[in-house]
Structure formats: structure tokens, C-alpha cells
């Protein structure tokens, strides 16, 4: 305020000296303007501040929202209901859709293929198959789901084998699909199976693989089981294909047993037969001239149990068997304890209340739908052992057939009443369940349940293996070895530099160790992977002798310095510089150990310690937990050191002074007073260090070899959650199950470190309060 303003009232008369103070209105305006500015500033800052906080919350919410869908179940919604297309009273044996769900096909009991629109049931075209006059259809079979192959068994001993195909064209940018029937074998003429004998094909199975087409048929009356192989040979010069018909007789499973189902895998080495005795019979036909009935396993329990439905899952490895008791179970070949391949029951699914009538496998995943005579339809997934959805059409309606759309987004159900139901299916993530993530899972082609992480492969039939156990174990293993290395070193160093070290040395030591925290971990990782890993491999004895010799050498050095060297010499170095004195000792021990390393190998390990370890049965990977532990230990030493040093340093001095006054030695004062008081601080330092080790990515990515194994061997590698994300995230399909599981891994890491840090923070906060009250 100027003098003028205080002595002259505003707006004083024109006679007085001119006032420099603004007029009342001006001041009011100015004040309003300032108030507005203040308000705006406050608003802007509040928006930014709250915005930042919201963003951070958003991060958590987003991670969670990307993860949540994998725990959802499937939805099925009926979108079409109509009578059998091309109505004629003939029962429907099988239905299928093409990949865009624009066209569907229905195979009838009187050997016709009716193509229709699945949404409305309107018929597009109809094809009458070449069935001799007066001959009836006895059975019907399909090949592996994706192959679109079907076969009719006829009562004159012949079979019709065909494929439904779809020509897709884009005239004018619009998709048009023209359905047609093709014949991979013969030209639509019935194929001879039991024609000579004139036996009916009571049960038929069809398959097509690298060898050609196989038709397997059984006649229950005469107990005849026969494989007819139309073997195809391609002349690799001309490209001409010649077909040779080969007939192989199979032994009948057991006298008096009626065969109900037949399946053969695509390599044509294994044949599976389901019987009316409730058993599954496994034939080894890799030598087709000498087929062997290897074993019969009871699949369906109960007296008059019968295998009523049976089909392959995608890839033709697993068999799903449905029984007359409503049970649904998965089977495949696995070696038993004696090393023999046996058809083994892997798991069973939620049963139906009535005999299972139809199984509809998915075309791109290991999922399938089952239908039963009581009008229930269920959607299952094999790997995750989940039943995802259920539908009840009403007690009276027996479901004849159920089939999945190739992209598993639709389903066709045919009831016994001939009515068609067309459903939209939303089943995006059936592969995930608690058991699939955290428990041992018996994967296809393996002999035991196991924890496996293998997210992708080149083939389509691949069963993704999403066990989080190897990754979690790997994460903990890496963090554990890192802490084993870092925690003692950092805490001991912290005790010394906070309590014993000379202040001048401390001003150098503390920043030097702390600046390590800023060192990019990619550099540590590269040194660990490219320098340390091969170096350790070649100088293993050096590493272990350093670990052993350094503590001993310190104590020896202490003895020499305090007891042996005359006080006149040792007295020149003031107390608190022991750390500096020991640096040459460390260097000397290191040099000694390295130069002794080859000799130690010669003396104790037959010249090569790595080889010696292997001979002892210890697996040794070059990039192993030892290397990672040291490299990551390096990364967390500064964190632990810095926080615990602060905690120890800030212990009120009068506490230790009291202890010393009572006659305690400095070391006793440290152990009994300082460490006890500072222990929460040290605990939180270890927590934060552990959190850092758990989430560290680059070091483990570069120094572990990234193999997802479950063990704690210090000489083997591992794969951690974080490295796994870094490796696989760029390749994961957006929105897919794999993608979301990686999000889950990120969320787990996020929560884990967040909780660890929060605990540490709260502990530290309490400690600070305690110090100020002491």
C-alpha cells in the first residue's frame, strides 16, 4: 500500500493531489477479476489433480475389465425355431453349418441332403443321394468335425461317403455361398463294405487321413467288424492318384456284445468301438494286417449300460463318450504305469438325467455340446473341465442331434418331434477355470496330469495349456534367489553404514550404492545373460569359493587388524573405515578364487564342474537361477539398503546412548536396541525389495532362458509372469483368451506388488510415528 492510498480517501475532490489508487469500481473489478482467476486456477488444478487420480484408478479398472470376461460362462439364445426344412417326415440324422452360418445342411434318414438357411429354415437346395431302390439307411457317421465328411450305412452292405462343401464368392463385394455335395471316394456310387456277404451296416464309422478314406462297419448279427481302406497313392511325377481298396477284418470285441459306436483316428492307427455293454474297446491297428484288440474299458456304469453317443474332439485324439445313464466322459490313449498305451478316462462332466443322444464337437477348440433324451443340451469344455451352459427344451422332447457352428457361435438342435432350434452361442472363453489355471490338468497326449504353460503352437488342433503354476513358481523362484543374495548383503551393509561407518565415508558410500537403483535393468540383464551366464558356467568353483571364502576372510582380516597388527599401525585408521579396509580383501579373495578355479576343477571335479554336476544328475542350464538371483539381487540391493539404512539411521540416538551407558558393547547395542527398534523398517525394505524382484522383467527375460518349468533348482532357469507377458503379449490375438490371461497375469502382478508396497508403507509410517514419540 502506498502512502497516498492511506491518507487520501478514494474519489477525493479534484482539488487534492491526484490519487494513484484506482477508483472503487476499478478496485471492485480488479477484485472480481482476481477472484475469477483464483477460481479458474483452483478449478484447473482440481481437474488435473482429480484427473490424475481418476487415471490411476482407471488403470486398475481397465486391467480388471479386460480380465473379467474369462470368468464368465456361456450364453445360448434361441433365435430360430422351425419345422424340419424340406418337410417330409423323414427323421434328421445330422446337421451342420458352414463357417459364416449362412447355410446349413440336414442329412435325412432317406439319404437326402437338404441345404437351408439356419435362421429361417427356408430350403436352398436339396440333393438326393445315390441310394439303390428299396435299400434302407441303417446308420450314419461323421468324420472329424472340421472335415465335413459324412457316411451313410445301408442295409445292403454298402456305404455312401460324401462331403458337404461350400463355394464362397464375393460378386460385387457381397458374400455368396453355394453349397454342394462332393464325393472324395468313388463318384457317388455306394461303396462296397459287406456287399458280397449282404450284411447290413448296423454301425458305421468314417475317417479320412493321409492314407486315404476308411470306412469301418460292424454287423451285430454276424459279429463282423471290418475296415475298408481306400488307400490313395499319388504318383509324384505325374500327380495322378490311384486308389486301391483294401479290406481288413477286425476281431469282434466280445461274443454277444453289440457294437453301438465306431471311431477311427485320422492317422488310422487306433480304432475305438463303443459297445452296448457300456465299454469302450481299443484296437491298435498300426499294423492293419494284424489288428489287436488291446483293451476294453468300462466307460458307463450300471447293469444294462450302453455307450449311446461317441465322438472325437477337435484333433481326433480325445473321445467323448455319452452313456445310457446320462454320463459324459472324456477318454484318450495314455501310457499306464507299465508303459502300455491304454484308453484312459481323463475326466467326466456334469451328467444328463437321461441317455445321451448326441455329441456336437466344436471345430476350433476342445469344447463340445451334448444332448440327452430328456431334452437337455449342455455345453462343455474338456481342458477346463467346465460345463458352461445348459438348456432345457422340455421333458418330452428327446433331442436327436446337436451340432456346433464352425466358429462355435451357433448351434442347431433337432428334436425328436422334427422341430429345429437355431441358437446363437456366446462362449468366448471356455478354456479357463480355476482348475485349468491352478491345478494339475491332464492334457491330451500326456501320460499324467501336469502343470504346463504352453499357450500356442503351429497346429490348429493344439490344446492350449494355461497353467499359471509354472509362471508363479518361476516368479517366486527368481525373487527368492534374488532376495537370498540381496537381503543379507544389503541389510548388513545398511547396519554398518548407518551405525558404525565414519560420516565422511558414509557421504560417499550411500549415494554410490543408491545410484545403482537408477541403472537400467536392461543393462543388468544383458550383463547377466551375455557375460555372467557363460562366465559362471566356466568358473563355477570360483563362484562357490567366493561365497564361502569372503566371510571367512573378513573375520581373518578383522583378527589380523585388531589383534596382530601393532596398534601403532592400526590406530592410524580411525574407527568407521573398516569397510574401506576390506575392499582390498574382497578384491584379493575374488582374484584368488578366479585364478584357483581351474585348479579346483582339476582337483575335485574331474576337470569340469559343469560336467560333474550333470554326472551327478543335476540339470545345469547356462542361464539359471544363480545368475538371475545375482543380477536381480543387484537390482534390489540399493532399494533394500536405502530404506533399511534410513530406518536404522533414524533410530533415536538416546536409545543407543542409554544402552552404551549401561555397559553394552556397540555390537550389543546394535543387536538388542537398534535392530529391534528398526526391524519394522527393515521388514518393509525387504517387502519393497521383494516387490521389485517379483515384477522385474528385463533381467529375467534376458538371463533365465524363459522355459516354464516347475522346480526350485538353482542351476535351472524359469519363466516369470512378467517375462511371459513381455514374450507373448505382442503375439496374442486381441480379445482372445490368451490375451486376457496375460492381462490376468498383469493384474496379479499389479495387485501383488501393490499390496506388498502398501504393507511396507503402512509399517514404515507407524515406525516414523514411533520414532517421533520416543
Amino acid at each position: 500500500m502506498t502512502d497516498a492510498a492511506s491518507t487520501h480517501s478514494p474519489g477525493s475532490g479534484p482539488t487534492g493531489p491526484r490519487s494513484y489508487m484506482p477508483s472503487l469500481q476499478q478496485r471492485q473489478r480488479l477484485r472480481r477479476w482476481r477472484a475469477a482467476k483464483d477460481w479458474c486456477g483452483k478449478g484447473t488444478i482440481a481437474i488435473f489433480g482429480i484427473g490424475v487420480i481418476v487415471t490411476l484408478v482407471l488403470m486398475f479398472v481397465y486391467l480388471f475389465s479386460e480380465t473379467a470376461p474369462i470368468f464368465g460362462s456361456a450364453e445360448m439364445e434361441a433365435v430360430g425355431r422351425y419345422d424340419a426344412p424340406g418337410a417330409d417326415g423323414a427323421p434328421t440324422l445330422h446337421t451342420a453349418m458352414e463357417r459364416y452360418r449362412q447355410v446349413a445342411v440336414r442329412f435325412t434318414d432317406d439319404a437326402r441332403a437338404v441345404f437351408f438357411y439356419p435362421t429361417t429354415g427356408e430350403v436352398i437346395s436339396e440333393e438326393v443321394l445315390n441310394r439303390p431302390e428299396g435299400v434302407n439307411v441303417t446308420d450314419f457317421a461323421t468324420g472329424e468335425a472340421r472335415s465335413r465328411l459324412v457316411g451313410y450305412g445301408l442295409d445292403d452292405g454298402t456305404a455312401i461317403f460324401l462331403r458337404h462343401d461350400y463355394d464362397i464368392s464375393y460378386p460385387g463385394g457381397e458374400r455368396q455361398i453355394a453349397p454342394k455335395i462332393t464325393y472324395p471316394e468313388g463318384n457317388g456310387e455306394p461303396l462296397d463294405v459287406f456287399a458280397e456277404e449282404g450284411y447290413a451296416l448296423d454301425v458305421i464309422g468314417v475317417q479320412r487321413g493321409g492314407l486315404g478314406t476308411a470306412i469301418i462297419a460292424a454287423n451285430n448279427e454276424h459279429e463282423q467288424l471290418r475296415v475298408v481302406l481306400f488307400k490313395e497313392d499319388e504318383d509324384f511325377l505325374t500327380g495322378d492318384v490311384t486308389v486301391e481298396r483294401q479290406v481288413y477284418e477286425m476281431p469282434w470285441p466280445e461274443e454277444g456284445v453289440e457294437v453301438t459306436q465306431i471311431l477311427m483316428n485320422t492317422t488310422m492307427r487306433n480304432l475305438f468301438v463303443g459297445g452296448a455293454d457300456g465299454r469302450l474297446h481299443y484296437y491298435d491297428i498300426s499294423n492293419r494286417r494284424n489288428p489287436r484288440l488291446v483293451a476294453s474299458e468300462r466307460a458307463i456304469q450300471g447293469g444294462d449300460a450302453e455307450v449311446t453317443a461317441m465322438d472325437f474332439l477337435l484333433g481326433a485324439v480325445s473321445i467323448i463318450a455319452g452313456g445310457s445313464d446320462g454320463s459324459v466322459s472324456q477318454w484318450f490313449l495314455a501310457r499306464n504305469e507299465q508303459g502300455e498305451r491304454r484308453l484312459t478316462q481323463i475326466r467326466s462332466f456334469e451328467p444328463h438325467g437321461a441317455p445321451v443322444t448326441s455329441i456336437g464337437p466344436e471345430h476350433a477348440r476342445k469344447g463340445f455340446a451334448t444332448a440327452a433324451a430328456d431334452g437337455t443340451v449342455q455345453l462343455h469344455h474338456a481342458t477346463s473341465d467346465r460345463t458352461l451352459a445348459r438348456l432345457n427344451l422340455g421333458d418330452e422332447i428327446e433331442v436327436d442331434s446337436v451340432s456346433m457352428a464352425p466358429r462355435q457361435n451357433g448351434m442347431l438342435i433337432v428334436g425328436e418331434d422334427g422341430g429345429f432350434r437355431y441358437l446363437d452361442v456366446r462362449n468366448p472363453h471356455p478354456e479357463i477355470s480355476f482348475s485349468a489355471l491352478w491345478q494339475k490338468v491332464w492334457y491330451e497326449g500326456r501320460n499324467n496330469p501336469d502343470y504346463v504353460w504352453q499357450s500356442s503352437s503351429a497346429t490348429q488342433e493344439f490344446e492350449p495349456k494355461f497353467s499359471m503354476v509354472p509362471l508363479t513358481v518361476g516368479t517366486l523362484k527368481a525373487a527368492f534367489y534374488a532376495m537370498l543374495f540381496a537381503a543379507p548383503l544389503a541389510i548388513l551393509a545398511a547396519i554398518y553404514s548407518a551405525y558404525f561407518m565414519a560420516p565422511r565415508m558414509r557421504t560417499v558410500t550411500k549415494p554410490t550404492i543408491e545410484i545403482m537403483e537408477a541403472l537400467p535393468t536392461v543393462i543388468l540383464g544383458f550383463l547377466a545373460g551375455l557375460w555372467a551366464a557363460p562366465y559362471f558356467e566356466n568358473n563355477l568353483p570360483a563362484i562357490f569359493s567366493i561365497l564361502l571364502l569372503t566371510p571367512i576372510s573378513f573375520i581373518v582380516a578383522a583378527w589380523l587388524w585388531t589383534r596382530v597388527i601393532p596398534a601403532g599401525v592400526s590406530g592410524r585408521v580411525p574407527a568407521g573405515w573398516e569397510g574401506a579396509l576390506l575392499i582390498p580383501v574382497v578384491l584379493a579373495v575374488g582374484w584368488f578364487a578366479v585364478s584357483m578355479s581351474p585348479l579346483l576343477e582339476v582337483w575335485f571335479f574331474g576337470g569340469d564342474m559343469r560336467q560333474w554336476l550333470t554326472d551327478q544328475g543335476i540339470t545345469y542350464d547356462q542361464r539359471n537361477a544363480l545368475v538371475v538371483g545375482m543380477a536381480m539381487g543387484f537390482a534390489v540391493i540399493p532399494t533394500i539398503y536405502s530404506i533399511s539404512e534410513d530406518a536404522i539411521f533414524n533410530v533415536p540416538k538416546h536409545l543407543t546412548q542409554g544402552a552404551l551407558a549401561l555397559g553394552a558393547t556397540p555390537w550389543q547395542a546394535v543387536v538388542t536396541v537398534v535392530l529391534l527398534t528398526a526391524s519394522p523398517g527393515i521388514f518393509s525394505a525387504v517387502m519393497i525389495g521383494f516387490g521389485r524382484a517379483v515384477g522385474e522383467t528385463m533381467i529375467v527375460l534376458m538371463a533365465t532362458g524363459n522355459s516354464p518349468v516347475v522346480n526350485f533348482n538353482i542351476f535351472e532357469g524359469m519363466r516369470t509372469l512378467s517375462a511371459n507377458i513381455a514374450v507373448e503379449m505382442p503375439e496374442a490375438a486381441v480379445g482372445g483368451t490368451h490375451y486376457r490371461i496375460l492381462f490376468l497375469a498383469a493384474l496379479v502382478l499389479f495387485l501383488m506388488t501393490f499390496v506388498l508396497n502398501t504393507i511396507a508403507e503402512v509399517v514404515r509410517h507407524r515406525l516414523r510415528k514411533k520414532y517421533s514419540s520416543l
Partner: protein
Amino acid sequence: MRNWFNRGIPWIWLNAGAVAISLVLVVGLFGHIVFTGLQHFWPSNIVAFDYAEPGDEPVSVMGEVDRSEVLSVQAAQQRGFQVDEDGDLITRHRIKRGNRDITDRDFTWYVQENMSEWEYPEDAVRVERRQWGDFYGYLREVRVGGDVVAEGDEAWERFDSLFAENVPRIEEIGRIERVEIGNVNAEIEEVRLAQRRLQADETLSEPEREERSQALREERERWEAEYDQLVERRNELLEDIERFEAVFETAEGHRATMPLGDIVKPSRPNAMSIGEKTVFYVGEFWDFVSGYPREANTEGGILPAIFGTVFMTLVMAVFVTPFGVLAAIYMREYAKQGPLIRMIRISVNNLAGVPSIVFGVFGLGFFVYFMGGGIDQFFYAERLPSPTFGKGGVLWASLTLALLTLPVVIVSTEEGLARIPGSIRHGALALGATKGEMLWRTVVPLATPAMITGLILAVARAAGEVAPLMLVGVVKLAPALPVDGNFPFFHLDRSFMHLGFHIYDVGFQSPNVEAGRPLVYATALILVMVIIVLNLTAIIIRNHLRERFRAESD
């Protein structure tokens, strides 16, 4: 003795030992990086010797000694060496033989016991080549257009002058290929996009459309003509250079003819004095820092990686500074100091401990796929299905890192604000300042150094972070820098190269890890230097700040 133990002296020494180990580790680590990183550019002498395993014919070997080690005879035999079994230990040397195109392996171990005396031939030549890594041999002839113009002793001088003569040509070719053709291609792409936009535009009448599309076609032809011209000019230059050839002979006696255009830098280290070596060393270092990578990044320079790192960090700083500072001011000065804000403060603090890869996952899902995908739909529909912002790029990388470093800036700024004595605030308010004025005129200026400290720490952290970048935009080889002469000059959608990722990529993903290793060390050295300098600056500012406030509050 017992008393000695009871007094705890050995335990104190053990603690002291932990400090000693930590210090040795830290200093040793930095020393290792600095030494190995700097050593790479030194033109070390080329050794030549004859090597014969017992019972074998001797072969001539020439190259640089890469590394030596001692190992037991058994271990050596296990690794496939034939050595006599007198004595337990042997020394082996790894020789960088180069000549990857002639011999199959450019790094080979040789056991010292089987070597003849080492020689350092004066006329041994090391040639840094555009392809196949380094070449070691003797210069025999210089040819121009197929005719020998110099051979024997005078060859080197002639070769040196011819090479110096041709350097401008080689540089021009490089410029044409990298800059000018790139520019023309960018223009052609622009025209193509304009054509697609035109087709999608339904408001235009038919003749109008025809007219514009005609104009675009003409423009396109013009650019294509320019392109052809550039290619022609390049080919002319190439032809000029290809007339000059040098004929070398390797240690094994293999003759190799090398066009001058394939040579990056020839040198005769054995004939150099220390002074010459120093000059050469500085030149090599400069080439490394200012050059472009070659041969899957295992040779050449790292300019794009340095540029990418710096640019990405700068963009990040632009985002993180206002948000971090304003959020800190809000939390410290405006928000009600209750349990809620304390909780938020702890959360923000803890966010600094959340693994960086988690931020990367968030960045990929939210920024790249969600936001980037959305931006593409609305603004770059004509480029679809090839994504513009819907893939990793500088923008998303810097945003992700901004999130990652936000806690650093907030915590640092808050600390700075908290340290400002209340008397300063009260004084300002007592003089009638509004809260905003008080903050803006007194508190914020005083806290500026704290903010700068936070920013520097954030930049240092961001510069060293690699894991999240691998998900949101870093690539092993970026076709173009994110800044160039084409409108709009800053291309935030482009992916970029990064020093840290370069280390990972060359060290672990490249086909020839051994050849790239020195380069990895050198890159690591540069990265460490940048980060140490940044951190030291922050520490100095902070210490300075503490002193100042200590003085003021007294």
C-alpha cells in the same frame, strides 16, 4: 579370542565386509561397462600366428584377440581341443578372425600351447565392410575398371587416396537412399491416400471427381518420375564407384576382390602410432554415435536409437510435467487433508513400485488398441486396414511412460511443496494475495527446483525403461525417424528405436550375438552415461535445494 567374539568385533567387520562387497560390485559393474564399452573402438593390433593341433598341419590365423581365459586340460578336451596332457592348465584365446563370408565362423578359440609366436605384421589390414562384418587380410592390388593400377608396397597409399576420393560419392548414395527416396515415397503415399479419400467422398459430383482424380494422377506421375531420376542418379554413382576394386589376401592365402563401395573404413592398426590410433578412435566413436545401424543392428551406429530415446522421453516430459505438478499442487494445497487424501498419497507412492510391464500391458490394451483403434476409425479411415495410431508408436510409448513416471514427479513436487515454510504462505496471504496468487507467485517458484528434480528423475527412469516399450511401440529397426522434413514433421504415430531395446535386441535376438557384443557394451555405456548424468543432476539440484531451505528456515 572368546572375549573378542563376545564384543562382537568380527560381526562388525562382517557388516563392514557387506559394504565393501557392495561397493566393489557397484564400482566393478560400472568399471566393466565403461572399460569394455570404450575398448571396442580402440584399433587394437592385429595378430598373426600359425596354429597346429598335435598331428595337424599348421594353418595361418590372423585377427584381433577378443578375450583370453585359463582352463583345465580336461575342460579343454571336453570342448574339442587337441592338447598335450603335460600340465593341468592351459590358456586359450578367442580370436576375432572376421571374414565371415570366407570362413564360417568369425570368432574362434585357439589354445596358446598350439600357437606359434605372435606376430604383428605392419601391412595387415582391417576393413570394416557394409556386409559380412570385418575383413582381415593383406592388400595386394588396386584395380580401376579391371586394370591393376598399383600393387605391392605402393598399393596401400593408392588405395587410401582412392578411398578418400570416393567417400563423398558413398555419402551421396546414402543420402539419396535414406532421405530423398524416402521423401518421394512419402509424397506418393500421400497421393495414394488422397485418391482413396476422393473415392470415399460422396458429396462430389462425377465430373468434379474425375477432374480431381486426374490432377492426382498427374501428381503421382510427377513424383514417380522424380523417383526414377533419383534411382538413376544413385545407379550412376554406384557405377562410378564400382570401377574401383581392391584385391586382398587373407591369412590362409585366399584372394578376395572387394569393390570400394562395400568398404566403410579401412585401417592398418599395426602401422599406426598412438596418436593416429587416438584420432581413429575418436572417429570411430563419432561414427558410432552419429551413424545408422547396419547388418541387423550388429554393426554401424546407433543414431536412430539415441534419437528415439531422447524424442520419446521429451514427449513424455511434455505430458508428465503439467499433470504431475498440478496433481501434486492439488493434493498438497487444495485437497482436504483427510484419510482419503492420505490413502491416495500412499497409493500414488506405491504405484512407483508397480512393475513396469503392467503399465506396458495397460498401454497396449488401452492406448494402442482402444484409443488408437478409435482414432483410426474416425480420422484415418482411408488408411485402414493398415493401422496408423492403432499400433505401437511414440505417442503411446510416451503416454505409457508418463503414467509410469507420474508418481515420481508427484512425490518429488509434493516433497518440495511440503518443505516450503508456512511463514512464506502466511506472509503472502496476509498481504491480501488470493490462494492462487500466493501459490503462483511464492510457493511454486520456490518449489520449482523440486519439480525439476522430479522431472529429471522421471526422465532418467523413462530413458532406462524397456519392458513396457516392447509392448507399445519400440522396434528393432525403424524405417524412419519420428521427426523428419515431411508434413507434419513430428510423426507421433511412428514406431521408434530405443537404446535399451537395442541392447536387448542385439544382445539376444540378433543372428550373430558375438559380433554384436562390443556394440551392445558401447550402447550400454551410452545409456548408462545418459542416466547417470541425469541422476547426478537431480541429486545435485536436490542437495542444493536442501541447503537453501536450511539456510532460509534458520
